[in-house]
């Protein structure tokens, strides 16, 4: 098997008229999705093959047609958050080369504003184009499994987004593990929470493509109104969810199951940040005892996940869940600061060797070299492994335990946030002299502190909002007279993070 579309083709032969994808306005069968994606591919193929296709479409069934369309054209797609600031979209587009944009009538205005010279294909026109079956067959003949399937952008520390390059081979290998481990099949009905520009979406989306499940896109608004969310789960007979812990916790914090319960749930998976045990226990104690819960762990750079833990015992509210063991066809090991392997419960950085691994960061050889390195334990021949930047250890049960991120990078609501990107936004405001963004873990607050003649903190906030997506907006903005410095003359972040309240926070 060389191409992820082979899964899609097998599924479409088996279940042509089964509903594969739904959003609030549309239900699409596998054969309808295939038809539309091939029409889109026939348009895209006019521009050549093996190119980046930026998909500027909101999360819905049309977006899915466009993603698969890019793959049929032998291209790779980049789903762009149409709600993120234009500067960020421009930044992503400028990182890519020779890109084609596909958009729909809802986002065409945005596409015209952010593009420089990229050609634009309009979804509504593309799905009326005749399928050029010969062209698509020829494209496939020349493809290999190392060809890129998609790029996912996360934020980079210099303020420039990093594009993780994932091949068909990585995707196939990962999807084989997840679907076999959790026994997904055509009866699986997903309630999808995560955006399609986020690595977690790969799991429920491509499991659907492989196994003929149903991928239901939950309207975002439901996560603010938990009773409506549970009603939705029941209406769509959702039996499997894979959400960020923040989303799972909403239902716990409101004790929603005291009022209404999901009736069809069988599998509850989560990843992206630490799952608070207290909130998980509410689910376990309120719902059907046969539900499987699993804590999945991994970065975008290993397609989605590298280790996992299926909850098989009770945890007290203040215990933390293990991240478990490696996935099938994925090997992990822990390396200490001195470059040797950690043993007997010693802490160290988690390394991954697997076909799940990304090829690197698009147009960013410097960052690629930092994270994708020679296996420090193999001196005999070249072997590339991925340094996760996560500090972990084994417990006495042989389960991996997550400790923390190695650097400043933080995770919140499942999104990776580089404080540097927020700072880059604040620094771009005229009159801001110096700034630092810190994360108050205890209170879960992103605090932006700046020095400069801009008196109104709102002005600085507005500057940041132009640069970063909403999940990165600081919760507090403080103006101080002088930025504290450490011995090296750098901004003293340690001091700020413990003393910002004294400074006026």
């Amino acid at each position, binding site marked *: 098997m060389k191409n992820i579309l082979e899964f899609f083709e097998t599924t479409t032969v088996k279940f042509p008229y089964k509903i594969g994808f739904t959003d609030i306005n549309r239900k699409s069968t596998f054969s309808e999705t295939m038809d539309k994606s091939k029409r889109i591919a026939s348009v895209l193929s006019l521009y050549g093959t093996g190119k980046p296709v930026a998909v500027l479409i909101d999360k819905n069934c049309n977006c899915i047609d466009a993603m698969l369309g890019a793959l049929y054209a032998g291209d790779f797609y980049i789903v762009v958050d149409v709600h993120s600031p234009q500067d960020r979209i421009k930044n992503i587009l400028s990182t890519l080369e020779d890109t084609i944009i596909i958009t729909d009538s809802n986002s065409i205005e945005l596409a015209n504003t952010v593009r420089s010279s990229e050609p634009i294909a309009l979804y509504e026109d593309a799905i009326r184009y005749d399928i050029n079956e010969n062209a698509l067959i020829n494209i496939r003949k020349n493809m290999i499994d190392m060809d890129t399937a998609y790029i996912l952008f996360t934020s980079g520390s210099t303020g420039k987004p990093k594009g993780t390059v994932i091949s068909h081979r990585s995707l196939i290998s990962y999807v084989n593990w997840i679907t076999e481990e959790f026994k997904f099949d055509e009866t699986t009905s997903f309630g999808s929470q995560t955006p399609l520009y986020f690595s977690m979406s790969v799991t429920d989306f491509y499991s659907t493509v492989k196994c003929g499940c149903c991928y239901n896109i939950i309207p*975002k*608004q439901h*996560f*603010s*109104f*938990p*009773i*409506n969310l549970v009603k939705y789960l029941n209406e769509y007979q959702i039996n499997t969810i894979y959400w960020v812990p923040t989303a799972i916790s*909403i239902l716990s914090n*409101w*004790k*929603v199951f*005291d*009022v209404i319960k999901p009736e069809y749930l069988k599998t509850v998976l989560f990843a992206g940040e630490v799952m608070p045990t207290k909130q998980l226990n509410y689910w376990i104690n309120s719902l059907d005892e046969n539900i499987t819960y699993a804590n999945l762990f991994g970065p975008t750079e290993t397609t989605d996940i590298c280790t996992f833990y299926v909850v098989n015992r009770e945890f007290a509210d203040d215990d933390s869940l293990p991240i478990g063991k490696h996935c099938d066809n994925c090997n992990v090991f822990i390396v200490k600061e001195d470059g040797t392997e950690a043993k007997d419960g010693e802490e160290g950085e988690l390394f991954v060797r697997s076909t799940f691994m990304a090829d690197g960061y698009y147009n960013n050889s410097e960052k690629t070299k930092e994270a994708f390195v020679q296996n420090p334990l193999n001196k005999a021949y070249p072997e590339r492994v991925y340094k996760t930047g996560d500090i972990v250890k084994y417990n006495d049960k042989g389960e991996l335990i997550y400790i923390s991120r190695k650097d400043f990078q933080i995770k919140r*609501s499942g999104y990776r946030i580089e404080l540097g990107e927020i700072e880059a936004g604040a620094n771009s405001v005229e009159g801001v002299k110096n700034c630092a963004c810190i994360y108050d873990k205890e209170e879960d607050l992103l605090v932006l502190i700046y020095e400069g003649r801009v008196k109104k903190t*709102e002005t600085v*906030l*507005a500057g940041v909002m132009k640069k970063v997506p*909403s*999940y990165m907006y600081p919760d507090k903005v403080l103006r101080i007279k002088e930025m504290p410095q450490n011995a090296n003359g750098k901004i003293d972040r340690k001091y700020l993070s413990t003393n910002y309240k004294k400074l006026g926070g």
Partner: protein
Amino acid sequence: MEKLLEILALIKPGVDFTKSDSIVDDGILSSMDIARLVGEISDEFDVDIEVTDLVPENFNSVDSMMKMIERLEDED
């Protein structure tokens, strides 16, 4: 009413909330914003918002928010 507008201005500065009757449906407030709003209303008005009050209809306009708050105050 003024207290509510102050809370809203704190959560999402620079938006004229009084002009909209589809604050939630138009996505003016994100899910994080709504969570904060609910917390602030509970604190400032000293009312208990139950999950059953947490429906879009109660948050789509400043008027409907006020009505909900008044109803909850009466229940005390």
